[in-house]
């Protein structure tokens, strides 16, 4: 589906990363593979360390920490927030919405919209799209896209498919109406037939968590996980990404009448380095323009990998320059989405620790 938005802009981006770093080598003993084989995988996939929360930390904790940082630094005021769109797959509760929890704990005004969206790897893009739609309203002038996940709490430590790459994190993106004329191009597609490619099988109403759903089982590849854990069919996801993402980007750029070389950066969701390099090669884009270093330094924090990517790789640049950025997110759902928009000069763009 093609989308087009007018006169919206990002004012600032804050990313909140857990201070706890775990090295790949520290967890190798949990995997049912030789150290030599695990180290080869580390090299190929770009694993190094991942940042994960301490036990009990929830997405609202990360977000409240980040929002208080913005309030304390006078980068944002409570009264100017007209809506919060919180994108997460790891809410504090089934009910109420975690955005309502954040609103209440921060004492924000009642005259606002709070909503949660269950989205993952493409969640940052979906959150921005929702913010742009809300900003069409006369009385909505500033929207926060809150993207956060603490999925490390749902990953088996003995699952080499998922554990080395999963990271936790949160981001606050302030989106507002722009005084300057601009056009933002977007595209997304969804394929629920692939819903089981990335999922947590138990814990919802279909299969409630029980003693039986906590029992670990070994898969064909030697990984141990239970139905309470996140499971990712890596081959299916890889093939889906390689099949769908390059044509999506080609299509988006064509719709925007934009040449590849006129895009300053391709800020993509980062599942692992290997997948990103294959996408860059296929699209004929340099690795400099499509950074792939987030999994190595932070882990894959679902949609939050995109704002982390922005903060880590072009954080200071966006404070002084306006750049043409192509965003893309792809994964759980299955969902694939992209945006082409100009960003900068931002009021703030930083990464802080929790």
């Amino acid at each position, binding site marked *: 589906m093609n989308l087009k938005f007018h006169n919206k802009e990002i004012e600032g981006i804050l990313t909140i990363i857990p201070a706890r770093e775990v090295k790949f080598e520290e967890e190798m003993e949990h995997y049912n593979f030789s150290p030599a084989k695990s180290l080869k995988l580390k090299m190929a*996939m770009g694993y190094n360390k991942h940042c994960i929360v301490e036990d009990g930390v929830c997405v609202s904790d990360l977000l409240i920490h980040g929002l208080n940082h913005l309030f304390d630094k006078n980068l944002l005021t409570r009264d100017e927030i007209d809506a919060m769109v919180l994108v997460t797959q790891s809410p504090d509760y089934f009910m109420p919405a975690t955005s309502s929890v954040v609103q209440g704990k921060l004492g924000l005004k009642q005259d606002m919209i709070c909503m949660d969206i269950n989205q993952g790897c493409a969640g940052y893009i979906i959150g921005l799209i929702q913010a742009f739609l809300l900003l069409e309203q006369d009385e909505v002038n500033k929207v926060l896209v809150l993207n956060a996940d603490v999925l490390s709490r749902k990953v088996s430590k003995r699952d080499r498919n998922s554990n080395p790459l999963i990271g936790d994190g949160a981001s606050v993106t302030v989106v507002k109406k722009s005084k300057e004329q601009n056009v933002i191009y977007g595209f997304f597609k969804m394929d629920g037939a692939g819903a089981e490619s990335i999922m947590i099988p138990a814990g919802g109403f279909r299969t409630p968590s029980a003693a039986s759903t906590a029992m670990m089982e070994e898969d064909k590849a030697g990984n141990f996980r239970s139905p309470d854990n996140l499971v990712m069919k890596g081959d299916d996801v*890889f093939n889906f990404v*390689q099949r769908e993402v390059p044509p999506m980007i080609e299509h988006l750029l064509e719709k925007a009448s934009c040449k590849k070389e006129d895009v300053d950066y391709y800020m993509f969701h980062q599942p692992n380095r*290997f997948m990103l390099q294959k996408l860059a*090669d*296929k699209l004929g884009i340099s690795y400099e323009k499509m950074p792939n270093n987030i999994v190595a330094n932070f882990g894959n924090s679902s949609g939050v990998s995109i704002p982390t990517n922005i903060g880590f790789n072009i954080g200071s640049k966006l404070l002084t320059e306006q750049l043409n950025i192509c965003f893309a997110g792809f994964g759980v759902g299955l969902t694939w989405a992209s945006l082409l928009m100009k960003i900068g000069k931002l009021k703030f763009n930083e990464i802080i620790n929790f």
Partner: protein
Amino acid sequence: MKDKITTILKEIRPEFDFTENVNFIDEGMLDSFDVVTLVTTLDKEYHISIDGLDIIPDNFSSIDSIRALLKKNGVHNES
């Protein structure tokens, strides 16, 4: 080329004999992560980038299928 591929495979999974005429995937001699390591090594050794759409089990099931994939990427037999 055959010897070089066999050497690369042996480095990835030293416990198997890749000169045997069997399906490497079906026999469990290469799993999906071995394939990632193999692709990374082949890309580097032959200065190519194997297309992501070609990273499917059938293309890594035998020495012949790997040779065919390399040929598709412009690598000649004498390499």
